[in-house]
């Protein structure tokens, strides 16, 4: 509300100024309430009293003009006297010394203008210099008559502050002043289109004149006056009615006659025409010049005053509006400001209620709607003693409650200007409640909906109470309340948004954290293929995320939960913790409650928020809980689809509850963990399966290696050592041995051993009695651990910590045993624990041993047989040099049927043959012997080579279709011609003396015994001196998987070379036979055709005298043979020594000593035979000198023991005979 006093100054001054100016004379105005005075220049000129505050202004004015009427004047100033002023005229001397006649009027100004209630608030004084008028013959009297009336109006108008007062002053004072019958005042409408009636003289009201708006376009004097801005004086009513018949009725109503004048005075402000003053003047009293001027002056003043009043009103309205608005804006600002930072919805509502009181109401109640019911959330009141009522209000309301329903249904605010007792009764739920409401004594009520996003979430009730402000709400209050409510709603919405945003942000941050953590976990888990690593990752993530101190991870296995991994727990404490111990179904513990089982069973998170909670929920387990030492715990099931793979347990050092987000995080973590565990399990299974497959494959390979070794053609001892090495390696053992029973020595012998530390004496019997191994001999496998100190032969005392011994059994009999072991007390991870592999290996070894022994036995027999059947030595034949070699097959019993024979026939020819009986072993060897003997006999019968084969074929047939091949030939040493035949046998090779080679393949035929009665072809080949014939069996050239031609070529190239036939044969064996790769047996016979040799032979009794005789005869022969010089001397010395030796050592047992000497080309051969046994050379030096001499003079010495005695055979290369 505007304060009158506060705003008086400037407005009053302005009003006074307007009033002074309006009069147009020397004017002075004194504000009696403040003492301020305003004067124009004219007044100052006349009185010497200037504008502005003149402290003694009033006194001086009174002294100057109204001294005679001082009493009346002062009375008018002080009291609420009747309207009317003081008048006087004085002669005054002006500044120039001229005497001026000044007429003065003073008039009090009262509050409210027209009304003269109370003392005057001011005094207005007008001074007019009438000295000139007097001289200008103005009607002084008229002017003097009009001035008081004008002054009265001016003073009255000066006090007006609003339009109604202005209208009242004008309509009341103007018509009487000029004798008008009727007057109206019209103002131009805002839009300038109409003239609106704002007031009329009392006459009109009495006559029931209805004033209407008049278009400014009309031809009425008023409209003309307004349009032109000029007064209209000379129009009669009759003129108007003639022009505008519709006016006649109004004219009659106001009692105007046709001859009456209509006067229209425009109200002109400096800027525009604001209105019009209309009067009807009776024709009886026409307006004189002074009257017209008076009216113009009044109109002028009126325009100013109207304008001022309008402005003033507008300003006042605006001011009031703005004041109210400012108050409300301030409140809104306050609300907005107070609510702007409200981030909590409940707090926002409380603030809203607090702010609404008291400006909006004495009480403010805010209720929110939740699930159809209302709940009081905020209440503000100036009187806290009304708490009882407050409590009553706090109860829930039904939404259908009186007055709420229309608000809720329409969404509009409800105004209850006057609250009656009926309203209270309708509202009250109980007598008590009603009493409380009555005590509140409400007058007026506004119910405003609180809307957020279009829906009503609550109600704000504003109540004014008779006991407080006693205020009655109006529509404006409702509008404002709505505004406040909407602000509050916005703030609330903001708060809610903010809260939800904050929640969302926090959620997002937490989710982001969780996601990041989960991502990290995922990343960590993705590289993890072992369950223990999965557990470590999950425990780390879980404990870190929740800030737990400890954790453990359990796996569901076989319906039990087993501890996989843990962190933070002392091992012992965890192990004793029954709650966490794996629960075994069917055990006595099975029905005990378990947190773990609970989590697994529920498939959801189980929390223990505190020790108290645990003890109340799980009383029977409280002891174990205490041992665990946790204050809170969370158990998360590890879910993979529908199955529970395990449980994650997290322990906390202080009481702990779990938020929804944390739960969600943990469930996700649990699922991730479950997936990773499943993946790890699959991987481990796969890994195990592969490892098992690999192991199985490796085992097969190892067994295969053992079998290979068993089948290889090796000596049994070598094979056993190799097989043992494979077994020891296969099972990752440190040591091992094979012990076999020796039938010959009738005890156990070590056959193979692997142990660097073992004292290995293969020849020393191994005594199983007294060791743990003796049980093996009963056919049992023996496995023993922790043997430190026990003796396991042949290993040193204490060397074996663990041993696995397996009997070597064949067909129920125990041949011995195999054992493997390691030095530590228990087998390492791996196959040492694999008794199966060792047993399988033992079977293989046993079979190999058995087989080897069988073969060995047969081999020995066959070899003996064959050796006995083959020529002990080749004959010394004139004209040929012979060398032969027989090699049995390298296998256990690979004695085959190869044979050869050389026979000197009585006619000097030489028969030679080489053959091969297919097969091996004793049977083949026996057959071979028969063939050889038969060939010898056939040759001596004088059969040709082809005939020999025919007869041998018969033999093969007779022997039961024995399949055999043979090559036979006859050599005439006098000519070198040979005739040969082949029965499916590889062709003999001729190494010609010129270096070329020829295979004798011109007489091939089928093998022996294939076709009975086969006739064999025969071919001839002339040997030259020095040519060498090589006969052989296929073992020399054949290699598995190789063409025979390659073998022939190899033979050809290896045979080529220098040296005698012995060297040739050695070269062939060395160059063509690969050690260890000889399946078949081999026979080679080399025959070099020489010229017929010079030969010396002499037999003498074994007496010392014979030595000189041998020397003598030999020297003679040498001389005849053309050998002399050192050759002769050395050979004689050799003969002497050899014969001496024969004589000396043969003793009486020998009948004679034979000396043979042969000269063949550059070779001299000496042979001395005796019938005695050869004794090794004496250790005494003088006895050994004979051999020393022989070695010096001869190139080679060969001593051979023969059944009948000893032969020493020597060669020396001699110079060309002279």
């Amino acid at each position, binding site marked *: 509300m505007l304060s009158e006093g506060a705003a008086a100054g400037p407005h009053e001054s302005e009003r006074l100024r307007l009033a002074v100016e309006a009069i147009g004379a020397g004017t002075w105005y004194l504000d009696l309430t403040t003492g301020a005075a305003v004067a124009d220049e004219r007044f100052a000129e006349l009185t010497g009293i200037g504008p502005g505050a003149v402290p003694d202004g009033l006194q001086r004015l009174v002294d100057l003009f109204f001294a005679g009427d001082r009493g009346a004047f002062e009375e008018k100033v002080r009291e609420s006297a009747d309207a009317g002023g003081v008048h006087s005229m004085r002669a005054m001397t002006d500044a120039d010394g001229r005497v001026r006649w000044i007429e003065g009027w003073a008039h009090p100004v009262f509050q409210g203008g027209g009304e003269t209630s109370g003392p005057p608030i001011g005094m207005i004084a007008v001074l007019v210099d009438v000295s000139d008028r007097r001289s200008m013959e103005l009607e002084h009297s008229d002017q003097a008559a009009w001035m008081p009336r004008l002054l009265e109006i001016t003073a009255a108008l000066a006090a007006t502050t609003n339009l109604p007062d202005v209208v009242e002053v004008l309509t009341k004072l103007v018509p009487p002043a000029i004798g008008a019958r009727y007057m109206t005042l019209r103002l131009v409408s805002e839009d300038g289109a109409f003239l609106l009636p704002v007031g009329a003289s009392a006459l009109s009201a009495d006559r029931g004149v209805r004033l209407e708006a008049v278009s400014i376009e009309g031809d009425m004097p008023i409209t003309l006056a307004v349009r032109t801005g000029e007064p209209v004086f000379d129009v009669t009513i009759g003129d108007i009615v003639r022009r505008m018949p519709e006016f006649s009725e109004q004219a009659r109503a106001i009692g105007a006659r046709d001859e009456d004048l209509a006067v229209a005075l425009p109200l002109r402000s400096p800027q525009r025409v604001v209105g019009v003053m209309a009067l009807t003047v009776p024709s009886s009293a026409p307006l004189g010049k002074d009257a017209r001027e008076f009216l113009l002056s009044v109109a002028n003043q009126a325009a100013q005053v109207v304008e001022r009043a309008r402005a003033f009103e507008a300003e006042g309205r605006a001011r009031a509006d703005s004041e109210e608005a400012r108050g409300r804006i301030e409140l809104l600002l306050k609300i907005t400001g107070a609510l702007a930072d409200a981030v909590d919805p409940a707090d926002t509502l409380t603030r809203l209620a607090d702010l609404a009181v008291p400006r909006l109401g004495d009480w403010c109640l805010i209720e929110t709607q939740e699930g159809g019911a209302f709940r009081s959330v905020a209440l503000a009141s100036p009187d806290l003693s009304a708490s009882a009522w407050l409590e009553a209000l706090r109860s829930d309301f039904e939404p259908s409650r009186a007055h709420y329903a229309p608000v809720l249904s329409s969404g509009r605010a409800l105004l209850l200007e006057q609250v009656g007792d009926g309203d209270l009764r309708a509202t009250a739920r109980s007598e008590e409640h009603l009493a409380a409401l009555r005590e509140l004594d409400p007058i007026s009520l506004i119910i405003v909906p609180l809307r957020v996003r279009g829906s009503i979430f609550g109600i704000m009730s504003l109540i004014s109470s008779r006991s407080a402000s006693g205020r009655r709400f109006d529509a404006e209050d409702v509008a404002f309340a709505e505004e406040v409510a909407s602000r509050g709603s916005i703030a609330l919405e903001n708060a809610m948004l903010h809260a939800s945003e904050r929640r969302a942000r926090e959620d997002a941050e937490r989710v982001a954290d969780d996601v990041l953590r989960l991502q990290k976990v995922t990343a960590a888990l993705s590289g993890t293929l072992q369950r223990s690593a999965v557990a470590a990752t999950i425990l780390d993530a879980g404990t870190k995320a929740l800030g737990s101190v400890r954790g453990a991870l359990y796996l569901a296995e076989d319906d039990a939960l087993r501890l996989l991994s843990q962190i933070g727990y002392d091992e012992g404490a965890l192990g004793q913790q029954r709650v966490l111990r794996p629960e075994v179904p069917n055990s006595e513990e099975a029905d005990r409650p378990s947190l773990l089982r609970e989590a697994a069973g529920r498939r959801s998170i189980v929390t223990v928020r505190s020790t108290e909670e645990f003890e109340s929920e799980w009383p029977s387990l409280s002891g174990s809980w205490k041992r665990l030492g946790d204050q809170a715990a969370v158990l998360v099931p590890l879910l993979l689809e529908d199955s529970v793979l395990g449980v994650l347990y997290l322990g906390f050092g202080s009481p702990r509850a779990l938020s929804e987000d944390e739960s969600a995080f943990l469930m996700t973590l649990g699922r991730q963990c479950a997936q990773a565990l499943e993946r790890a399990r699959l991987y481990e299974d796969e890994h195990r399966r592969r490892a098992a497959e690999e192991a199985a494959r490796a085992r097969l390979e190892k067994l295969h290696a053992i079998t290979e070794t068993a089948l290889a053609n090796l000596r049994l001892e070598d094979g056993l050592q190799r097989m043992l090495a494979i077994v020891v390696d296969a099972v990752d053992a440190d040591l091992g041995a094979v012990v076999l029973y020796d039938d010959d020595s009738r005890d156990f012998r070590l056959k193979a051993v692997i142990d660097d530390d073992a004292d290995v004496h293969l020849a020393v019997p191994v005594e199983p009695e007294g060791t743990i191994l003796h049980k093996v001999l009963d056919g049992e496998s023996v496995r023993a651990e922790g043997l430190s100190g026990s003796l396991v032969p042949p290993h040193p005392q204490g060397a074996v910590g663990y041993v696995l011994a397996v009997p070597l059994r064949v067909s129920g009999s125990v041949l011995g045993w195999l054992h493997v072991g390691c030095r530590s007390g228990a087998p390492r991870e791996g196959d040492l624990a694999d008794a199966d592999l060792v047993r399988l290996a033992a079977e293989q070894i046993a079979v190999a041993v058995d087989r080897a022994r069988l073969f060995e036995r047969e081999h020995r027999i066959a070899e003996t047989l064959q050796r006995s059947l083959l020529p002990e030595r080749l004959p010394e034949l004139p004209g040929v040099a012979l060398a032969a070699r027989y090699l049995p097959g390298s296998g256990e019993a690979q004695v085959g049927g190869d044979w050869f024979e050389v026979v000197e026939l009585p006619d000097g020819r030489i028969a030679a043959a080489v053959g091969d009986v297919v097969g091996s072993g004793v049977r083949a060897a026996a057959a071979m012997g028969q063939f050889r003997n038969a060939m010898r006999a056939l040759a001596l019968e004088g059969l040709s080579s082809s005939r020999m084969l025919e007869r041998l074929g018969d033999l093969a047939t007779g022997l039961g279709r024995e399949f055999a091949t043979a090559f036979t030939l006859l050599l005439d040493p006098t000519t070198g011609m040979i005739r040969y035949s082949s029965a499916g046998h590889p062709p003999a090779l001729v190494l010609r003396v010129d270096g070329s080679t020829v295979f004798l393949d011109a007489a091939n035929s089928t093998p022996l015994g294939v076709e009975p009665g086969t006739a064999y072809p025969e071919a001839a080949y002339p040997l030259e001196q020095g040519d060498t014939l090589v006969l052989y069996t296929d073992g020399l050239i054949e290699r598995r998987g190789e063409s025979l031609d390659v073998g022939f070529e190899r033979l050809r190239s290896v045979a080529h070379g220098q040296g005698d036939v012995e060297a040739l044969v050695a070269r062939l064996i060395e160059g063509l036979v690969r050690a260890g790769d000889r399946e078949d047996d081999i026979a080679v016979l080399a025959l070099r055709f020489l010229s017929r040799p010079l030969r010396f032979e002499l037999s003498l009794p074994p007496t010392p005298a014979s*030595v000189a005789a041998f020397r003598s005869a030999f020297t003679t022969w040498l001389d005849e043979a053309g050998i002399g010089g050192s050759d002769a001397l050395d050979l004689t010395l050799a003969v002497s*020594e050899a014969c*001496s030796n024969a004589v000396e050592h043969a003793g009486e047992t020998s009948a004679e000593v034979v000396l043979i000497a042969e000269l063949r080309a550059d070779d001299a051969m000496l042979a001395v035979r005796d019938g005695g046994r050869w004794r090794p050379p004496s250790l005494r030096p003088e006895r050994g000198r004979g051999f020393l001499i022989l070695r010096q003079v001869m190139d080679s010495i060969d001593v051979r023991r023969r059944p009948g005695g000893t032969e020493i055979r020597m060669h020396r290369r001699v110079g060309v005979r002279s």
Partner: protein
Amino acid sequence: MTTPEPSFDREGPVLVVRLRGDIDLENADRLLRQTLDHSFEDGVLALVVDLSEVTFLDSAGIRTLFGIHTAMGERGRPVGVVVPRGAVIARVLTITGIPDVMVLAPSIDEVKELVGAAP
């Protein structure tokens, strides 16, 4: 076959043994015995074995020479052997290492000088 007999001659304290013909298993041991018998004669301080007339000698003869050398050595009596240049028996002597253990020279005088038995 007849082998010439050896001769044993005293030249002061030196006993000169002249072996002749072939020496082999048949006569070697006898020649050793004979030589040792003569070596026990009074005043024999050194011995010279003259092989100039030996036509053949094998390990049996070598054994004889070593026997003489050993027996004389035990008594501190030097032994020298005369082997003429180009003798056929030189080879067997060399083979058996005689020059390494006995004093050999082509003539009696040279041998006597070498064994310190020269007048």
